[in-house]
């Protein structure tokens, strides 16, 4: 076998590695240029916008950036509140709903599961007009709850949690808990939730990132600049106020992307494994 892979094998490997390395450069280069340019002055960028080595103007770019409407701290705090709130809601209530589907025999169980499967694909854009008008009438625009509470009903997450429970939740354990006199609610909180940890971690990462990156709904609902999330802040960078402040725009982008890089490189192993499960989405 090994003898056969002489010339053809070497040629194949040369081609394959070349393509892989080029694609890796393609993935990294835009972010690299972004980071490098965030340390270069407007004059340097104007001379040549393409550079691979950083310069020394980080501080002055930061001063320009923060001197205008871009406020990364507020954006960061707002995005954090929304993303954490929505993630907690999705994780807890999706597990609870999945548990209802797995642990109990009730009449509407199958129709309910079919409904969850059916609405899984409906995207937010489709119902935005009704949603916005409804929130407007309730006076809930500019209210983070309008972005957090809907996360309680996350069909994709319920589906994922259910599949995990089918595979790894021993029903005997629940019977044993019942015999010991544990209430159903206590059993779920103290026995089922800890078993769900691996699934909660995987789903949690994706729900968090989805909410963090979401532009459409916050852009529609949040009009008060004090309430802007990170992606809305990013859209401000395109405005006229930063028109020729190239270094500052790159720095603003770097600041919005940085938290995600940190999350990604700390958790990439789980994220890659999670993607492979398919269907795991916000």
């Amino acid at each position, binding site marked *: 076998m090994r003898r056969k892979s002489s010339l053809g094998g070497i040629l194949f490997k040369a081609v394959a590695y070349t393509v892989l390395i080029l694609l890796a450069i393609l993935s990294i280069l835009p972010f690299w240029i972004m980071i490098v340019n965030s340390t270069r002055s407007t004059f340097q960028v104007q001379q040549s916008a393409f550079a691979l080595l950083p310069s020394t103007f980080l501080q002055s770019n930061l001063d320009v950036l923060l001197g205008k409407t871009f406020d990364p701290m507020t954006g960061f705090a707002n995005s954090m509140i929304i993303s954490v709130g929505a993630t907690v809601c999705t994780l807890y*209530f999706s597990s609870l709903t999945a548990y209802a589907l797995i642990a109990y025999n009730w009449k509407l169980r199958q129709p309910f599961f079919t409904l969850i499967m059916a609405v899984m694909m409906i995207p937010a854009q489709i119902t935005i007009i009704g949603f916005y008008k409804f929130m407007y009438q309730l006076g809930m625009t500019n209210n983070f709850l309008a972005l957090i509470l*809907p996360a309680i009903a996350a069909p994709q997450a319920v589906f994922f949690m259910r599949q995990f429970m089918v595979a790894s939740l021993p029903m005997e354990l629940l019977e044993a808990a019942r015999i010991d006199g544990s209430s159903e609610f206590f059993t779920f909180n103290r026995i089922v939730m800890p078993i769900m940890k691996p699934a909660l971690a995987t789903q949690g990462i994706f729900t968090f990132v989805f909410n963090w990156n979401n532009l459409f709904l916050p852009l529609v609902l949040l009009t008060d600049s004090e309430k802007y999330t990170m992606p809305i802040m990013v859209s401000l960078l395109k405005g006229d106020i930063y028109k020729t402040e190239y270094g500052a725009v790159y720095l603003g982008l770097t600041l919005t992307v940085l938290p995600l890089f940190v999350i990604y490189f700390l958790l990439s192993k789980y994220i890659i494994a999670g993607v492979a499960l398919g269907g795991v989405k916000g």
Partner: protein
Amino acid sequence: MKRRKSFSYAKYGYIFSIPFIITFLIFSLYPTIYTAVLGFTDSKGLGNTSWKILTDDPFRNFKLVLNNESFITGLKNTAAIWMMNFIPQMLLALLLTAWFTSRRSNLKGQGFFKIVFYMPNIITAASIAVLFATLFGYPVGPVNSLLLKLGLIKEKFYFYINKDVSRGIIAFIQFWMWYGYTMLILIAGVKGINPEIFEAAEIDGASGTQTFFRITLPNLKTILLYVLITSLIGGLNIFDIPRLLVPYSGPDNATLTASVFIYNQAFSGSYFWNRAAAASMILFVIIAVCSGILFFIMRDKEAAEHRKAVKRLAKQQSSKLKAQEAK
């Protein structure tokens, strides 16, 4: 005795589903119905909450939208951008899947490449849109500088003045953000295929190419369909990148998509809630048909495959836990 017991616990099934159901009714179902109803009304204007059903011609908004050149342009652009992105994305993902799962080639550094290829997918689409707007900027932009340096162009090029180039850049960004994801899904699919089939092929002397086209591809059919439909639905809703990349959707609405059209109708200009709602419903029907096809074909197979994959994760985790406990 036993039956009575299970009967008494059944109510918890309802109790534990209540939060989901109430939230779904309030935040999903009601807005959906509301949107559908608004499509038949005269609702417009910022802050104006009163509306009435159009009695003379209930379908007026739908007719207006379907006869609206911008909306048709938007749908065409959406379809064109999706096609330009999906076909190369699928081909590259298939090629990489073949390379990474081939037993003979045994490429090194797969973990690293997977992490790097998937990375753009996790970064905020809004940031990526603004980043690429700046990268392809004119007169100051890194791509222009690089092309000048390499001598590929003689003078700076204004990318976003050209309709096809603008659409191409959006399609490229989508391709760049999603081929890693598609590749990971396909690799997981290949790993789910019974290894005995591959062994049998090897014994029978099948070449790598033969194995891929005769065994791997046919066995991936369900997953390919899943990727196709989810990508189609995502593609039909594309908003962040076309909205932020090119100001005012470029010349002749070159990069206007269906979602951007809906947004513009509802949240700018005259605040035509009714027309935006009608356009949403038209998009909804298109997506529902796509989802329906997916749901119909995948209802059994997907669940089984998913369960297998989740089981694998659970096993990995529990063995990891055991290893930790052993320490």
